[in-house]
């Protein structure tokens, strides 16, 4: 039975890999100091503790006030792999909050972080990409990423990285493409995305299709997509098992077929029958996108002719539960039955 005497010994250290947290508001300044320590083990332990401590948003705000961002920036170029991968994890946690993202931009952490894309440790790269992806989700973060000329680099990485990381890069690119598409087009992103359409992982296919959709928003992108023959694989993906894949493929087709060239290529690839099938899909997004694709295709006379057979099917969709689908169906019917 435990004695009632207060022991002189400290309680047993549950986790020797973590630095002990000082009490109250001394915790963060002390951790900040330890981050800059010369001893490797001190830095590592401080990083582990910091990682767990910063899950609370208030702590993030305080940490940034104390100047943790600067220390982390220095640690990004540390020689020890554990330090680097933990630092990137901490940066990821910080980037999930707005204050953190502001700090990224203030201290210019994007560029050093991007150097870690070439790191030898997988975890470090993965975390770096995760942090970058979080960063790019807000408009000015994406603008920052684009300004740092990271888009061509990311596209290059997309070719030969691990699958998990490919996913993250595709996400990052998705947000960056909303801001600026020139860089990606120049860097040959369309070809890479088209290749990825045949990937064995569904999520990567879906994200690649989504990125093609984003990239095809400007006219150059549409032309590039037609050039690179992205339409046949996209039409193939319309039969894919994964819902997300189908919906993104339909969306991509919808954006590419706005140009006349795209329309005819899609008609050649036989997109209409598949799209008509998808109108009945369970997922509302799929239905919406396929209706949009059908609308663009029916702008062409051949398309309109074929679609006149399926008008009834589309008319049924006007009583759909999703409002967007209803609207899309109405527009589609109107376009199909339009006479010049």
């Amino acid at each position, binding site marked *: 039975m435990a004695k009632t005497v207060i022991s002189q010994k400290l309680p047993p250290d549950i986790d020797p890999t973590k630095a002990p947290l000082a009490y109250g508001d001394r915790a963060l300044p002390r951790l900040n100091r330890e981050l800059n320590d010369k001893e490797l083990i001190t830095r590592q332990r401080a990083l582990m503790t910091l990682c767990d401590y910063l*899950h609370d948003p208030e702590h993030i705000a305080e940490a940034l006030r104390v100047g943790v961002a600067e220390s982390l920036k220095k640690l990004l170029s540390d020689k020890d792999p554990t330090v680097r991968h933990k630092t990137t994890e901490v940066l990821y946690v910080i980037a*999930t909050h707005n204050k953190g993202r502001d700090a990224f931009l203030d201290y210019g952490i994007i560029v050093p972080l991007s150097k870690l894309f070439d790191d030898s440790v997988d975890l470090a790269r993965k975390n770096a990409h995760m942090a970058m992806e979080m960063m790019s989700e807000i408009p000015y973060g994406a603008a920052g990423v684009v300004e740092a000329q990271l888009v061509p680099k990311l596209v290059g990485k997309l070719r030969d990285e691990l699958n998990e990381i490919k996913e993250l890069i595709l996400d990052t690119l998705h947000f960056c493409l909303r801001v600026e598409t020139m860089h990606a087009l120049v860097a040959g992103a369309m070809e890479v995305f088209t290749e990825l359409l045949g990937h064995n992982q569904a999520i990567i296919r879906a994200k690649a299709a989504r990125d093609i959709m984003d990239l095809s928003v400007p006219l150059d992108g549409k032309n590039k997509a037609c050039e690179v023959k992205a339409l046949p694989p996209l039409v193939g993906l319309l039969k894919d098992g994964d819902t997300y894949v189908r919906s993104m493929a339909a969306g991509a087709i919808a*954006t590419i077929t*706005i140009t006349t060239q795209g329309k005819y290529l899609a008609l050649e690839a036989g997109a209409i029958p598949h799209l008509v099938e998808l109108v009945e899909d369970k997922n509302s997004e799929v239905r919406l*996108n396929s209706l*949009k694709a059908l609308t*663009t295709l029916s702008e062409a006379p051949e398309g309109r002719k074929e679609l006149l057979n399926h008008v009834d099917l589309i008319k049924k969709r006007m009583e759909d539960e999703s409002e967007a689908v209803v609207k*899309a169906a109405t*527009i589609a019917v109107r376009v199909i039955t339009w006479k010049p």
Partner: protein
Amino acid sequence: MTTVLPQQKEQHGGGTYTFSSRPRAVQQRKKYRDAGQGQDSAALYGNIMYDRRIVRGNTYAQHTLPATAQPDPIEIQRQQEARRRAIARKRAKEQLRPRSPEAVEGRKHIDVQTELYLEELTDRVEEADVETQTDTFLDRPPSPLFIPAKTGKDVATQIYEGDLFDFDIEVKPILEVLVGKTIEQALLEVMEEEELANLRAQQREFEELRNAELVETQRLEEQERRHREEKERRMKQQREVLRKEKETAEKIAARAFAQSYLADLIPSVFGTLADNGYFFDPVERDVESGFMPWLMETVEKAIDKSVLGRTMVDVLIREVVAQRMESFEALQRSIQEMSGGAAPVAKPLEMEAPSFIAEAAPPPEETPAEVPSAEEAPATEGEGEGEQAEEPEGGEDEGEPAEEGGDDAPGEA
């Protein structure tokens, strides 16, 4: 245990310390301590506590024993003197001590006990002899367990069920805290992920709508653009057609006008040309170009001849007049010489002579074209006379002689 200090053979400290304690028989001692001898006996029995050789306390004021074996002679002297002084002091004190006066003669002071209870004054210490003899050697029994004597009071206490605390009740808050913290942590993590997932789902929805809107916008844009282009094209075509029509109409009108304009062009052109003399009758032309010049030349020649004749006549007249003048002048002079006056009479004659000459000059100048023959005439006065004979004959015949005259003139030239 009695301890005995070894007899100090040496005055000074030095050499190894030895200690021995051997059993001694009890000394015969007096009942009462003797004042003087007390020290020595005390010196023989050493108590370690009162041994001056053992250092106690601070050492900064200690007497340090000299290192050398030989004592300093000065030190010895000093000590001896100190001893002598001490003895002297004691003796002095003894003398000063008040004593009772001396006994009267024949009497003696004797100490007498006057207390209630008499005290035996003997020097003999009561002694009792006691014998003891150890037992025969026995095996030493094992030493018993040392159980220290109990000091203090014995107090017992017993905790019964429910006296101290109820574990189940007491553990609850602690458990709650523990479990609560763990669950809170877990909840936080799960919530974080859920938040992220929710955000992503919302993002997806938003993106869905956005994409749809975007596509719609672009499609409408495209449609607009195409319609507009179509319209433009049609309009352009129409315009083209209109333009062509206009052009054609203009062309026709122009053609008609041109035709009408040019209808009477030819006659008028011909008329103008004819008026300007661009069309000629060959015979007429020939007559004009051939015949007329010849005619004119011939006429010229004829006139030249007549002019020449006149000139010749003028020359003749002049010469004659000049000769006459000279002769008249000579006459005049001779008259004057003779008469001495009548100058004015000569003048009218002079006046007339120039007028003859003036008339003779212009006619040759009138026909400058046929000049050669006319100019030659006054120059060649000598031959003029010769020709004069020919001239009248030439003047009569306008035919070949005139030509010869004309030919001669150029020949002479």
